C-alpha cells in the first residue's frame, strides 16, 4: 500500500512540476474564474437579489467551469509524446496512474478555489470569516467528487478529436449532484445556519465521493487498455 501511494504521488508530483513549468492550464483557469466573477458582479442587481442568496451559486458555477479547464490538461500532457504509453508500460497498476492524476487534478482545482475565494469575497462583499473552516471543508468534499469523475472523463475523451468540447458535455451532468450539495451547504454556512441543517447534504457529498472514487479506480484500467 505504501508503494502504491508513493507511486501515485510520484505521478502527481510530475504533473504538478510540468504544470508549474508551463502554467498553461493553471493561468487559464485562474483568469477564467476572475472573469466570471467580474461578469456576475456587474450583471447582478444588488437591490433585487441579496449577495447571500446569489453568491453561493456564483461561487460554485465559477469553480465548476474553471475546474473543467484544469481537468482538460490532465491527459493532454500525456498525449504530447505518447508519454501515456510510458506510464502504461511501467510495472505499476493502472489504478496508481488514475490516483496520481486524480491527486494532481485535485491540487489544481484546490489552487483555483483558493484564488477564487478571496476574489469572491471582494466582489460579493460576503463575510466568510465565521464560516471559513466549513467553507473549505465543503470545497474539499465537493471537489473530490467532481475531480474524480472529471479525471476519468478526461482520460476517456483525450483520444477524441474534440476533447476540449467533449469533457464539459460529459462531465457537467455528473457534476450536478455535488454542485447542488455544495451550493446548499454554502448557502447555509453563509447564513449562519446550524450544522444539523447541512448534514443531509454533507452525507450526499460524502457518499458521492466514496462511490465515484471507488468506481473510477475500478473502471480506469479498462478505459486505458487498447
Amino acid at each position, binding site marked *: 500500500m505504501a508503494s502504491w501511494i508513493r507511486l501515485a504521488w510520484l505521478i502527481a508530483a510530475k504533473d504538478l512540476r510540468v504544470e508549474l*513549468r508551463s502554467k498553461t492550464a493553471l493561468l487559464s483557469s485562474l483568469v477564467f474564474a476572475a472573469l466570471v466573477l467580474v461578469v456576475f458582479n456587474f450583471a447582478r442587481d444588488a437591490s433585487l437579489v441579496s449577495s447571500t442568496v446569489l453568491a453561493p451559486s456564483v461561487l460554485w458555477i465559477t469553480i465548476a467551469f474553471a475546474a473543467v479547464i484544469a481537468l482538460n490538461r490532465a491527459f493532454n500532457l500525456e498525449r504530447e*509524446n505518447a*508519454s501515456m*504509453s510510458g506510464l502504461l508500460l511501467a*510495472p505499476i497498476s493502472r489504478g496508481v496512474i488514475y490516483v496520481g492524476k486524480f491527486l494532481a487534478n485535485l491540487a489544481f482545482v484546490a489552487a483555483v478555489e483558493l484564488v477564487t475565494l478571496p476574489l469572491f469575497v471582494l466582489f460579493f462583499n460576503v463575510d466568510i470569516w465565521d464560516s471559513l473552516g466549513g467553507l473549505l471543508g465543503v470545497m474539499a468534499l465537493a471537489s473530490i467528487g467532481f475531480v474524480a469523475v472529471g479525471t476519468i472523463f478526461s482520460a476517456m475523451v483525450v483520444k477524441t478529436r474534440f476533447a476540449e468540447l467533449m469533457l464539459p458535455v460529459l462531465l457537467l451532468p455528473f457534476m450536478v449532484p455535488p454542485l447542488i450539495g455544495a451550493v446548499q451547504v454554502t448557502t447555509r454556512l453563509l447564513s449562519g445556519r446550524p450544522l444539523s441543517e447541512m448534514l443531509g447534504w454533507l452525507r450526499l457529498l460524502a457518499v458521492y465521493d466514496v462511490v465515484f472514487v471507488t468506481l473510477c479506480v475500478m473502471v480506469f484500467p479498462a478505459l486505458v487498455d487498447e
Partner: protein
Amino acid sequence: MPAQSAATEQPLAGGTDLPVLEGKGIERAFGSLRVLRGLDLAIRQGEALVVFGPNGAGKSTLLRILAGLMRPTAGTVAVMGNPVRSHEPETRRPIGLLSHQTLLYDDLTPLENLMFAARLYGLSDPKRRALAALEALEVSGRALDPMRQLSRGTVQRVAIARSLLHDPSIVLLDEPFTGLDVVGAELFRGVLAGELERGRAIVLVTHQLAEVWELATHIGVLLGGRWALHEARPPKLSDFLPRYGELLRG
C-alpha cells in the same frame, strides 16, 4: 511458411532454449480491418529480430502488442514465460520500448524524465541510474536543459536512454534511428551490440535495412499482417535485397 518455423525453433549458439519473448498466433483487427494475421515468433537471449515491411504492414501494431500496450484480437504474448497481462504489472518489467514517439515530457529536463522513469520502475539511486543512462548515450552534458531546447537527435538519444534505463530483458525498438546523425547512429549501434552481448533480446522495426543488418540475428518481412519471410539473417545484405524487392513487388 517453412522459413517461419525454422527461425522460431532454432536458438542461436549461446542462447538459452527458453524464449525471452514468445508470441503465438497473434492477430489484431481494427473493426473489419485485419492488421495482423496469426504471427508466431520467439526471441531468445542475445538474439535480434529485425522486422522489415512496407508502410501499413502491421509492424508498429506488432510492437505495441509485444509491449503489452495493445491486446491482440487472438493469440498470446509471453515474456520470460509469463503472459503479458495489463492487470499484472510485473509482467511488463522486462520490457523496454522505444516507440515512434519519445514517451518524454517536453517541460522536464532529460535528467528529470529519466529519474521519473527510474522511480516508476523502482530502481535504486534513480539519479545515478539516470545519469549513467544519459552518459552511455553521450547526452549527459544536456541533462539539465529543458527537452524543448534539444535537437531531434539529442531527444532521440534521451528516448533511447529511457528505454534501456531499467535493464530490460527484451528491447522493442520502432524506427530507432530516426533523427540520429551518423555519429549518433554509430553510437547507438554500439550500444545495441553491447546489449546483445549482455544477453538482451531485441526486436527492431525499421525501413533502414543497411543500418541494422550487422546487428540482426534474424530477419522478418511483414506483408499484409503475415510473415512473408522469417529466418536467420543471410550473411550479406546484397544477397537479401533482391529477395526483399521481389517480396514487396508480390
